[in-house]
């Protein structure tokens, strides 16, 4: 304590007699009263030059003699306004009743305070409010410092001071003002530096605090105006309009808003006038004009007319194809593109398909000549997009390419069952199998490639041809967005004229686009969507096959081939918590639960007695230790590949975090979902990989659910990627099964083995939902293939409902 402070306090009228002893002991005069009953807590010696943020809070009392005494924080904060109180000298006689009343009154902080000076004897003293001329609270000191830092341009430090006050008392007087000053100053600085987005964030925050803040309003209009001009020049019309709309909401008469609106209108008119009259690109140009300024005169009618002529379905997808469509592609994007652009040999495993009835298939007839020979006859009207007929040469090349290890379309199971493929004549193909095969026609559900490109990994766009109802027009990839466009084949009149896939990495953005009518259909409904909040204009459907999320394991990696380690991994993950808190962000519905294997619950292959592995960190630790001992290693580091989806990224990060607690380092590697799946299926080595599988009910594909590389060419060693030989032998034996009941029994046995051997870490099962606007009709409500019946779709020309 300073000498000035002590001298002042000496003159304060003391009130408690018990203080005398202490006062004497401390060489203090009796004028300073002590609340002797309280235990003395010696305060740490403060350093006055220490920054406020790092020192313990304190307040300053300014006494009558202008002395400033730092004291322990006062309470309550802020103190009530001082009251006047006529004090009596201690010597005067009074009744006990009066004395008690006076004591009661003196407990009022408006009259008297108990303070503990920061320096001194560590005792508490009583001070009358009328002896204090000013109290400087710690919060005020922080705000004063923040103001100083704002002036000095040190906004980060200023914000720390403000945050400190906010944490102590968010309603502290002056806090809002200081914060506002900081926001405005920082926004101005960002504008000056050209970082308009960041500057606008500060201004928006200031406006959110006080919408009538003129300074913030002016600054917002200035920033939005500049941003709108930039977006307009870059062709980002929606964003320019958004800026314009925002300016108008701030100030309806803002000149910058008017100017931007005029420019947008001018752009829309120009685009509209340049739109060709008789080509489908007209709709694209009109849509572009619509994006710029929807209210352009005549635009709405012209767009409606174009939509009737060239109906277009916009589909929001998680991933679009990055090169030409190919029917053997492993990614969901390739599968969708192939559905549009290629026709399968058989559409379904039904009698009508064997007779060639479905229009969307290439085969006019399929028959099994004997137990090991099948014969396919092609339709005479099946054509490629370049006009030539699909002939037996194409089919022979395609079916052969599936059995050639050097071909990208290679499939191990097919290679094992096919003996020869021969063209009988131009339209007839004979397929000889090595043995009687259960449901060999399954393989003819796949599409055929032209003979010239059947063995090519990449087909150049200029030579690409398809056989489907749609032809691929191309992919467009920009910095933030990607899209693929498909156009109906000339001569066809059923179905939409165009299908355009727009990429939305985040399901929630896709959902918002659907609600905003920017897209007509979304491939995947976000998992955190509340189904009871779906608007009546939107239909939501569930695919028959759910999504099973799992972590695939590469058995070629020695540590992952270790059974104890795999079991340890399964025990180490708190999947319930990851599922609810990280993946869903809500409580699961009845059709969302933890998975016990790769097979979906409720299917014929699922063994109902199998239970998911519980979370048991103690067991996990023991098993990890055992694995390390067995392999004589001390450090484990693995890479987890995961597809670029925000919900999966959250869980992957959490998994890495929780496994680090067990001494296992997990490096995360982000992939495009399709690329990851293709890489895994090609047999390339990996360590851990997140997969989302939709278990189809075909026994030929069981192995692929458990180990993605199992059908890869032999030279890749893909079979060894299945970490358990006993499961591998069962899976390969199942491929040779010939009786349906045997298949089921064996599949259930495999399901049990997966739980015991853990060649993968099952995570959870969720339904796969897709949704569409009711303007689009004909979409099947329970299909595993989005474009399965695309030729039955029709999109209403509700142009006025579309607001880009």
């Amino acid at each position: 304590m300073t000498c000035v402070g002590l001298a002042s306090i000496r003159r304060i009228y003391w009130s408690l007699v018990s203080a005398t002893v202490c006062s004497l002991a401390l060489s203090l005069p009796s004028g300073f009263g002590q609340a002797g009953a309280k235990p003395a807590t010696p305060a740490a010696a403060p350093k006055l030059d220490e920054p406020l943020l790092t020192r313990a809070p304190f307040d300053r009392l300014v006494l009558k003699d202008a002395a400033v005494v730092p004291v322990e924080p006062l309470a309550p904060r802020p103190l009530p306004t001082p009251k006047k109180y006529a004090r009596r000298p201690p010597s005067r006689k009074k009744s006990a009743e009066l004395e008690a009343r006076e004591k009661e009154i003196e407990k009022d902080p408006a009259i008297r305070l108990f303070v503990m000076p920061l320096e001194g004897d560590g005792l508490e003293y009583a001070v009358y409010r009328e002896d204090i001329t000013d109290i400087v609270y710690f919060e005020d000191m922080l705000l004063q410092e923040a103001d100083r830092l704002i002036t000095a341009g040190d906004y980060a430090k200023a914000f720390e001071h403000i945050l400190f006050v906010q944490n102590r008392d968010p309603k502290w007087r002056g806090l809002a003002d200081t914060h506002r000053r900081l926001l405005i100053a920082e926004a101005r600085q960002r504008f000056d530096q050209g970082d308009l987005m960041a500057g606008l964030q500060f201004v928006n925050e200031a406006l959110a605090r006080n919408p009538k803040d003129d300074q913030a309003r002016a600054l917002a209009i200035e920033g939005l105006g500049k941003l709108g001009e930039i977006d307009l020049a870059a062709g980002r019309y929606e964003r320019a309009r958004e800026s314009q709309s925002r300016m108008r909401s701030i100030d309806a008469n803002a000149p910058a808003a008017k100017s931007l609106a005029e420019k947008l209108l001018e752009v829309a008119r120009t685009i509209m006038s340049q739109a060709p009259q008789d080509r489908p690109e007209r709709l694209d140009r009109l849509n572009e004009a619509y994006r710029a300024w929807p209210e352009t005169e005549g635009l709405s009618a012209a767009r409606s007319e174009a939509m009737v002529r060239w109906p277009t379905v916009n589909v929001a997808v998680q991933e679009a194809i990055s090169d030409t469509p190919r029917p053997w592609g492993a990614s969901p994007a390739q599968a969708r593109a192939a559905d549009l652009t290629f026709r399968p040999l058989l559409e379904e495993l039904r009698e009508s398909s064997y007779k060639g009835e479905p229009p969307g298939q290439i085969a006019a007839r399929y028959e099994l000549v004997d137990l090991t020979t099948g014969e396919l006859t092609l339709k005479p009207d099946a054509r490629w997009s370049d006009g030539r007929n699909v002939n037996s040469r194409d089919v022979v090349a395609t079916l052969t390419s599936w059995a050639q290890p050097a071909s990208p379309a290679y499939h191990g199971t097919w290679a094992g069952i096919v003996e020869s493929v021969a063209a009988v004549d131009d339209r007839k193909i004979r397929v000889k199998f090595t043995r009687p095969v259960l449901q060999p026609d399954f393989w003819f559900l796949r599409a055929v490639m032209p003979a010239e490109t059947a063995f090519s990994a990449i087909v150049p766009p200029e030579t690409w041809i398809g056989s489907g109802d749609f032809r691929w027009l191309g992919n467009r990839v920009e910095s933030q967005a990607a899209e693929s466009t498909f156009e109906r084949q000339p001569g066809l009149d059923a179905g939409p004229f165009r299908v355009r896939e727009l990429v939305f990495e985040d399901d929630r953005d896709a959902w918002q686009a659907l609600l905003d009518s920017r897209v007509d259909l979304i491939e995947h409904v976000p998992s955190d969507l509340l189904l009871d909040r779906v608007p009546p204009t939107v239909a939501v459907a569930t695919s028959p096959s759910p999504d099973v999320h799992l972590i695939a394991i590469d058995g070629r990696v020695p540590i992952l081939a270790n059974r104890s380690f795999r079991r340890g991994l399964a025990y180490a993950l708190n999947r319930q918590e990851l599922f609810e808190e990280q993946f869903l962000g809500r409580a699961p519905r009845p059709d969302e639960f933890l998975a016990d294997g790769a097979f979906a619950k409720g299917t014929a292959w699922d063994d109902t007695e199998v239970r998911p592995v519980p979370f048991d960190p103690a067991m996990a630790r023991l098993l990890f230790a055992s694995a390390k001992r067995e392999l004589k290693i001390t450090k484990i580091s693995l890479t987890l590949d995961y597809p670029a989806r925000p919900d999966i990224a959250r869980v992957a990060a959490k998994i890495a975090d929780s496994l680090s607690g067990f001494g296992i380092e997990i490096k995360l590697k982000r992939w495009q979902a399709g690329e990851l799946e293709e890489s895994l299926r090609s047999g390339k080595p990996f360590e851990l990989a997140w997969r989302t599988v939709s278990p189809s009910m075909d026994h030929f594909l069981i192995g692929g659910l458990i180990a993605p590389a199992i059908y890869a060419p032999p030279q890749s060693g893909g079979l060894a990627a299945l970490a358990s030989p006993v499961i591998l032998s069962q899976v390969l034996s199942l491929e040779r099964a010939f009786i349906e009941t045997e298949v089921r029994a064996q599949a259930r046995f495999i399901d049990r083995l997966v739980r015991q051997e853990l060649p993968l870490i099952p995570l959870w099962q969720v339904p796969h939902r897709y949704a569409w606007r009711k303007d689009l009709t004909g979409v099947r409500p329970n299909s595993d293939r989005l474009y399965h019946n695309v030729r039955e779709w029709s999109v209403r020309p509700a142009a006025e409902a579309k607001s880009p």
Partner: protein
Amino acid sequence: MIRLRFPTDLLRRFALAFLFLAGAQSTSMAQESPASSAEASTPASGQQESVTAENQPYDIVLHLSVDDRIALDAEKGARILSDFEAIADRIVGRAWKLDVRWAEGEVWDTPFDLWTQWPEPVTYDRRKQQGGEKVWLVRLRPGTDKASLELVGREFDRSSGILGPVRTRPVIMTDLARGLFEICRDIFRAIADVAGYEGGEVRLRIRGASLAAVSEGSILAQPGQYYQLVRLFYDRTGKFVSSTVEPWTYVKTTKVSGDGAFGSLLSSFRDPIGRRYRQTNKLVAMALTPSTVPTTFRFSQLLASTGGTPIRHPVAGHKVEIHEWPTGPVRATALTDREGTLRFEAPEGLDFYGVRLVGGSLEPLLDVPVLAGDQVPAILADAKPAAVEFQQRLIAYRDEILDALARRFVIEARLGDRTKASDWNRVAELVREWRNTPVPTGFTSTLAQWKMVAQRRQLQEKKAIYTQANQALMAELEALASRYEGQEIEVYEESLEKRSNLPYLQDLEDQAKEKAKTKAAP
């Protein structure tokens, strides 16, 4: 390939003929084992006298052909062959009686079975009897990379009708004669009569062994050489009919004496030499050089189809352990592919190894010895699916018991810690937790029941279920279950009841004393 298979058809025909014509008398004659009496099983007149075998050279015809892509004319070829003969004469000496032929443009009109390994289709007419007891076919072709050359060759032995394995060797054009000699050494298979077999030792009389080598590198009789046993079958007139290689059987020479060699028998069969046949036969041994050429194994199993007709299925996706023969450590593991095949290249230094096919996680299905680089016949195995299924159930149960044991150990460790600290509330919680672990008798009774069912099923269904591996696993599980059963926590309960850690500390002391006593005991 056909020649390597067991000639069951021929045997059957001969047996029928004997029964019809000569009755049981001839049968007893035909069962003479060449091992027990090599002379008795010697074929009729016209064959070589075995007494003079050591002095007999090998009459060999070498056909060297050159790939069209290699610029080597006949003149240069003749020079190389001449050099080769000089080297052979210097190193091998009289044992090889060579007839070297430049095979460029030469055409044979009958298909010659060279299996699938032969790189080019080569034809050879056996009827023409072009001479030579042994025919060596060697081809010079471009190597794996454009700059290199390699020689590929194999031997055909007329006396046994056996085609030797393919051998390859990289060469350089300037040293082609030496390369040719090296590959001839690789493919050459010396022939030996099996002169006796006693106490696991086989006595061989190697043909040409007495023809002194002109250098130290004699390739005829050396310790450490491997031989395959080949059985030659003859008809009643003593005419050679067919031959078969004794499967999974080799002889490794241990010492060489003047008139022959002694070797140890390496076989997956107990007595392959004493095996009896109805047909007149003779056992000979053919040398085989280990090589790094990959060996292809093809495993299959017989399954009954729906019609009851047995069909072959590949043993696909099974683990194969390559180990040191007979019971040495595992040197490598591999998997059979969809067709049940495995192509294995023996690592450096592993000339002879065992191939163990494993069903499930640890059920040994078969174990055979193989010489590195040998060509082996298809292997028929019993995949024992019921045994594998039972084994998997046991393994899963082992996990369960081990997990329960581990959980109890964790709880006990915590109990000990908390009891020492007299934290009685936590001790009470932990005791409750311990009591909630599975009841010990549950494990033992389940195991007893499983054991009984497996034994009964094995008897009733005549299938391998309770195999040796499963018995061992069951014993391990029973031991684990009894260990689990023996765990008690009375001492903690007593401590808890008395609210004193003295009983526990006393128990610890007793245990330490007991341990010390056990340690001190001899």
